[in-house]
């Protein structure tokens, strides 16, 4: 849920104008053609008054094609998200592999951000360029069509071939969800987020849009940069490394009692002769964050959920290759084989956003 909200907000704040920069030209070509056709049909005998009236931008007529374009784009990208999520699922990845993929996605986003900020020409290689023949077909198609809605709809579908920088990063994230529904939901939220700004700027189509676009490009790049750093950092956390900023941040701001278990009380208890540690899974954290358990003996890790709706339900212990999706409300038990005294084992949600450590020192 958190990720979908992030995707929507990203689309709303940055994707709209970024997409417009890359895909707006295509839409504009098909709309300009339509306006020109309208003018030609209305102007039979050239008279100043009639030409002036005909040349007034037919705003009301523009809304439908732009809306059709955006609706087609939304459907196309949601389907692409579904496909990518399915592909991500097909390839069953271990937590370490997923961490690696997440770090790679973050680096891709970082490269795109640096490209947009024009830091160095080498970052241009992070842009996806469709082959020349596709570009030619798209351009010619946009130019030649006369029909009012068919062109915008078709072009809306074809925008999947020319994703803008931010969209590319979102597509990579959809692949990383490893779930068809997750990928589809992410792309739906993001593309929906891009629509209002895209619509507004395309509809009014003033020079203000161009000036705004130049300054907004930098804003978009900076937001992408921040997202990239966050993605790389959570990937590092997912890999179990203590060097993650996110992990340190969570531990710094968590309640003390929630971080360290109180001495002599649950979560550790010898239950029915078996060593059991208990972790409460909450929507934005695991309690406690540091769990002490006995070394040299098998340990049962009991995970308790109560109406949990966030990604913290996707519980991961990278060192053991454990990936488990917990029930919204319930209990799950993970068997941990005996560990040497002093062993520390990181656990987290599947995206590395929330986590903690198991310490085998009792």
């Amino acid at each position, binding site marked *: 849920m958190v990720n979908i909200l992030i995707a929507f907000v990203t689309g709303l704040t940055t994707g709209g104008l970024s997409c417009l*920069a890359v895909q707006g030209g295509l839409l504009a070509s098909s709309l300009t053609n339509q306006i020109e056709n309208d003018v030609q049909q209305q102007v039979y005998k050239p008279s100043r008054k009639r030409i002036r009236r005909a040349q007034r931008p037919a705003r009301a007529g523009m809304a439908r094609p732009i809306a059709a374009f955006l609706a087609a784009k939304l459907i196309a990208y949601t389907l692409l998200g579904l496909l990518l999520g399915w592909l991500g699922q097909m390839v069953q990845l271990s937590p370490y592999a997923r961490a690696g993929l997440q770090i790679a996605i973050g680096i891709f986003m970082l490269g795109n951000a640096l490209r947009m900020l024009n830091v160095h020409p080498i970052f241009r290689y992070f*842009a996806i360029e469709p082959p020349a023949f596709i570009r*030619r077909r*798209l351009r010619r198609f946009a*130019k030649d069509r006369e029909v009012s809605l068919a062109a915008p709809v078709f072009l809306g579908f074809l925008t999947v071939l*020319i994703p803008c920088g931010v969209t590319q990063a979102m597509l990579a994230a959809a692949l990383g969800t490893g779930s068809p529904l997750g990928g589809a939901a992410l792309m739906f939220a993001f593309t929906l987020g891009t629509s209002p700004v895209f619509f507004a700027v395309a509809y009014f189509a003033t020079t203000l849009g161009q000036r705004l676009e130049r300054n907004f490009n930098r804003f978009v790049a900076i937001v992408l940069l921040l997202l990239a750093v966050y993605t790389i950092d959570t990937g590092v956390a997912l890999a179990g490394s203590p060097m993650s900023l996110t992990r340190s941040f969570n531990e710094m701001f968590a309640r003390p009692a929630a971080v360290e278990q109180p001495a002599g009380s649950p979560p550790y208890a010898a239950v029915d002769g078996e060593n059991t540690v208990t972790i409460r899974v909450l929507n934005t954290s695991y309690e406690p964050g540091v769990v002490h358990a006995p070394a040299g003996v098998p340990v049962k890790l009991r995970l308790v959920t109560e109406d949990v709706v966030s990604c913290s339900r996707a519980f991961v212990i990278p060192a053991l290759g454990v990936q488990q999706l917990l029930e919204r409300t319930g209990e799950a038990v993970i068997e941990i084989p005996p560990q040497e005294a002093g062993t520390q084992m990181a656990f987290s949600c599947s995206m590395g956003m929330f986590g903690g450590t198991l310490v085998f020192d009792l």
Partner: protein
Amino acid sequence: MSRTITLQIDGMHCTNCAMTLEGIEDRLPGILRAEASYRHARLVVEFDESKVDEARIEKEVERLGYKVSAINR
């Protein structure tokens, strides 16, 4: 007689810019082929010398909002 030149372009900031530049194929008579690359910041143009010249092509590129920094013949 056809000739091919490669123009180094300043000012492209995404793939759409490449597509915009390739539009000179349709806008200028005499252009046989125009292929742009955002990645390499260049535009390769094959044209009929009897219908259009380098100066006209350069002017069109500038009219679209880009700058030609070098021409390789």
